[in-house]
């Protein structure tokens, strides 16, 4: 009896590890190991351009990454911030309407948010190029009302890149906000009303704070991939809108400088981690960051 109990307890103790096993193995093989080789690469140097880099604690790669690409780093984070704010401004009302006024069309509306995702990311970006292209409706309209001059374009400007980023990552903002709004007990709002709260005040004091975790999740889901994106800047931007992803691409593919490209990737990851930590502190969700 006692023996069996012991066995049972042993088994119970082993269970979490067994369950974690496959995931941990996967992570080790396909995340930590590549990350380690990337780290090693970032501290390597090539004796010549086409020779394989050799590990030499080459910290100079990091000083190059940190000093020479400040412009592209700050641009990446600025564009990603603006795209995140724009996505939030569009997504919140949308998610609100779907959650509280969607009724039986909820699933259809949610489906419509996701439908663009059935299209390839690249195709969506190229479609955006057509939308804001010189022959497109948007530019035509802006030229007619005089906001754009006759030879001015939207393409190859920062606004095209930020617009593309917003558009491409919008569903990542809508879905988490929707989930957090949908879970809110509407009786709380009714109670606020009973206590003579205005609709706006009820929103401000009840609905919005309760939806903050969704806003937090959504902003991260938009911000992080947007900051590292290079496709939008490549197709919609110009030489003055290049982001850090474009620099990494150029270092890898054109200049064949793998160590600097790897160092840039690590600096980027470090900055993202700091930003996320600060952000979670500010939003009061330090438990979950």
């Amino acid at each position, binding site marked *: 009896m006692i023996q069996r109990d012991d066995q049972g307890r042993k088994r119970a103790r082993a269970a979490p590890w067994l369950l974690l096993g496959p995931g941990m193995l996967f*992570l080790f093989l396909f*995340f930590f190991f590549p990350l380690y080789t990337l780290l090693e690469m970032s501290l390597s140097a090539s004796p010549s351009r086409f020779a394989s880099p050799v590990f030499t604690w080459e910290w100079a790669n990091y000083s190059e990454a940190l000093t020479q690409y400040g412009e592209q780093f700050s641009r990446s984070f600025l564009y990603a911030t603006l795209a995140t704010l724009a996505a939030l401004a569009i997504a919140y009302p949308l998610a609100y309407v779907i959650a509280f006024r969607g009724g039986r069309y909820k699933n259809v509306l949610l489906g419509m948010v996701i439908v663009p995702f059935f299209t390839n990311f690249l195709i969506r970006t190229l479609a955006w190029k057509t939308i804001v*292209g010189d022959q497109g409706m948007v530019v035509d309209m802006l030229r007619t009302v005089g906001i754009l001059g006759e*030879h001015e374009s939207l393409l190859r400007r920062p606004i095209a890149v930020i617009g593309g980023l917003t558009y491409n990552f919008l569903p990542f903002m809508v879905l*988490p906000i929707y989930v957090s709004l949908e879970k809110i007990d509407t009786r709380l709002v009714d109670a606020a009303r009973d206590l003579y709260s205005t609709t706006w005040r009820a929103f401000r004091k009840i609905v919005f704070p309760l939806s903050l*975790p969704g806003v937090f999740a959504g902003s991260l889901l938009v911000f992080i991939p947007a900051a590292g994106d290079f496709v939008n800047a490549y197709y919609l931007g110009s030489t003055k809108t290049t982001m850090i992803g474009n620099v990494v691409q150029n270092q890898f593919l054109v200049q*064949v400088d793998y160590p600097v490209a790897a160092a840039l990737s690590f600096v980027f990851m470090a900055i993202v981690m700091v930003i996320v930590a600060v952000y979670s502190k500010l939003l009061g969700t330090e438990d*979950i*960051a």
Partner: protein
Amino acid sequence: MTDRQAMIRTEALRLARMAGTPRWSRRQFLGRSAALLGVAAVGPAILAACGSDESSGGSGKSVTVSNWVDYMAPKSPKAFTDGTGIELKYKEDINDNNEYFAKVKPNLSKGESIGTDAFVLTDWMANRMINQVKWVQQLDDAKFPNKANMRVTLQKPPFDPTRAYSAPWQSGLTGIAYNIKETGKEIRTLDEFLAIEGSTTVLAEMRDTVGIFMLATGADPSVPTHADSLPAFDKLQKAIDDGSIGGTNGNEYVNDLASGNLAAAFAWSGDVAQISRDNADVRFMIPESGGMLWSDNLMIPSTSEKPGLASEFINFFYDPVNAAVLTNYIQYIAPVDGVEDELIKMGGSAAKLVDDPLVVPTAELLANVKIFGGLDEEEEVQFDEHFANITGTG
């Protein structure tokens, strides 16, 4: 802690798992990429293992060729198989010299197969493949008798003086393409191009863009040095800074020119020949100060076990009859003597191509174009870094 706070907390913790999602996705992404890389590394080996041995002969013979998009006439692969009995696996997997180099580097640097028996790369990359990294092997001249048809001007490039390792697939010109509806007038010089009010781009291929700027500033790109090219880089920098040039472009300029998204762009001749068939507003010119001439060269990777079959492949397209079929479709400059006669024999629109200087360049046009010369490793790094700096990625 009040109940409400507790509720918010629980809710927040639940959503924390969602907040973790981006990092999870990235992990998955990285993991999957790594897995894909693994497959990419193993794939060619499997492909190579599946490929039949060259000596087996008969219907089992097959050769794999990697080339650029839109660089083959639709009927030619079948004609090749019918004519030679060799099965052809034709891949359009080259979009960019640098990108392709990065793609094959991991395997070729270790002497592993890349699953292809021939690839087609531009002069300067051919120089890197033949003389710097040495990842290519000689063509089998015994299987390439039509080499005799190679145009004299292409027979002795500095990077491969006897054409032992490479054979031009097609040649082309780099100049300026413009949509006359947008520019309102003909463009003849680089300065007129820079003065265009609408959107313009230059090519992301450093040698094409810098070469034309070097010619306009009196430098000679056929013997390039970084010191000589400084005025050209300054002119380019100024044009980008003051907005005369909107950005850089790869092959995408083709659609943008036709649709009017671009008024003008640095462009490759064959692309423009193809669009101007449908859109007469799009025109191509070589600036008065000069344009660039380049060739894309077929080479055999050192890891291919079928150099003979790959040589038979290029031999087939050095027969003027087959070369003319290609020219009629892709409208670049054929590297093969006798193509003009075959085009005339084909009649119709093919015969008209003979009068198109972009397809059959005149002597005066050829006198006004240069081939970008070889760069040693140090100079190449200087050129690449300077260009990356100006175009926003350096």
